[in-house]
């Protein structure tokens, strides 16, 4: 692939608003990013899909650290399961991928990082776009495709599919344009089976999980143990995890890491956290509070 940015980098770039904030709501973005990673791997012929399942094809590294991490994860868990299952499983690691993608975009000088102090410990973090060149370029490519009857390039097809199924079309087009070109957008969006599975995964997610209500419930819970149990239940619901063993180490009660997670929640007072396995750090979402344990 000759594009300067990978598919997950492009979709994350599209989600950054003019203030440097990231939308849509982070849980949806997790699933979209996971799907973007799988699409990129599919275009690079490392995985394949059919109407029933995701198939491992080639474990050779792509040279991109994020894609290779996901590829290694898939090969370490080589079960023949539907695409939605793998979207969920990779989505479970999306927090750390998001961090790494933002770092990669920073390194490529597409965005910069701005930390703003709110209290002595907590700061908000923004990612303003530098110069707009790459953002403009991806929007132009995708709009040119939508406004024509051309056969799509694979990367633009993936972006349209992600934007359509991830409810992110408004980052690419005006409301009026979305309505005018809806048939064409739908035609492109459904051309990839991974894209269609994203639609299923996101539809189930939005139907079964009310994150804002859940967050309010978390605020009313007193003990760190209860907060962590609620977080684990939320993760299980979100990613449709049934077995304890499918949870990551830091959320698995039988694993020593679980006690450290509990310790971290006790320290920061919230279970709105994730664990960056690569850096061995716990991170509070949307704040820069980072603790190495």
């Amino acid at each position, binding site marked *: 692939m000759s594009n300067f940015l990978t598919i997950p980098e492009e979709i994350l770039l599209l989600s950054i608003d003019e203030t440097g904030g990231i939308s849509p709501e982070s849980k949806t973005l997790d699933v979209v990013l996971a799907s973007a990673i799988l699409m990129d791997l*599919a*275009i690079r*012929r490392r*995985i*394949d*899909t*059919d*109407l029933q399942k995701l*198939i491992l*094809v*080639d474990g050779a590294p792509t040279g991109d650290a994020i894609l290779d991490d996901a590829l290694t994860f898939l090969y370490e868990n080589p079960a023949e399961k539907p695409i939605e299952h793998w979207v969920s499983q990779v989505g479970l690691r999306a927090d750390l991928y998001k961090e790494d993608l933002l770092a990669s975009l920073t390194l490529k000088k597409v965005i910069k990082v701005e930390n703003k102090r709110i209290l002595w410990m907590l700061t908000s973090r923004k990612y303003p776009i530098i110069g707009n060149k790459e953002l403009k370029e991806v929007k132009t490519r995708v709009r040119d495709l939508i406004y024509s009857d*051309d*056969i*799509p*390039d*694979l990367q633009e*097809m993936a972006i349209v599919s992600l934007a359509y199924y991830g409810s992110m079309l408004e980052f690419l087009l005006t409301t009026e344009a979305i309505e005018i070109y809806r048939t064409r957008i739908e*035609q492109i969006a*459904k*051309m*990839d*089976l*991974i894209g*269609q599975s994203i639609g299923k995964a996101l539809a189930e997610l939005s139907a079964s999980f009310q994150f804002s209500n859940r967050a309010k419930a978390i605020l009313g819970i007193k003990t760190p143990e209860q907060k962590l149990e609620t977080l684990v239940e939320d993760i299980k619901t979100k990613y449709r995890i049934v077995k304890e063993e499918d949870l990551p180490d830091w959320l698995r009660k039988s694993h020593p890491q679980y006690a450290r997670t509990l310790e971290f929640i006790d320290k920061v007072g919230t279970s709105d956290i994730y664990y960056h396995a690569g850096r061995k750090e716990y991170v509070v979402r949307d704040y820069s509070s980072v603790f190495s344990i």
Partner: protein
Amino acid sequence: MEIRITQENDLQYIEIQGRVDAVNSGEIQDKLIALADAGHIKLLVCMENVDYISSSGLRSFLSVGKKLGKEGRLRFCCMKPSVKEVFTITGFNSIFQIFESKADAMA
């Protein structure tokens, strides 16, 4: 998987036998793009002996269609129901013309 290419009037007739998946779709793509590079921009792919097609196979045909451009033509014929279903579900039947028989495609 086997590919047989013959010239029929002004088009290249491509018969594929076997599965079209990640293992062999690259080979199919390379052969069809080589035809386009040689100036053969009217291609008819017979799918009569194809039992299975994956996303990778679809993407390969998409890349060939892209390479042929608006002046070119990529058509398919004689699809089995299971393969036709994949084309229909993904909307590839709205991008490429699919015919029941070789005669229909060449008419």
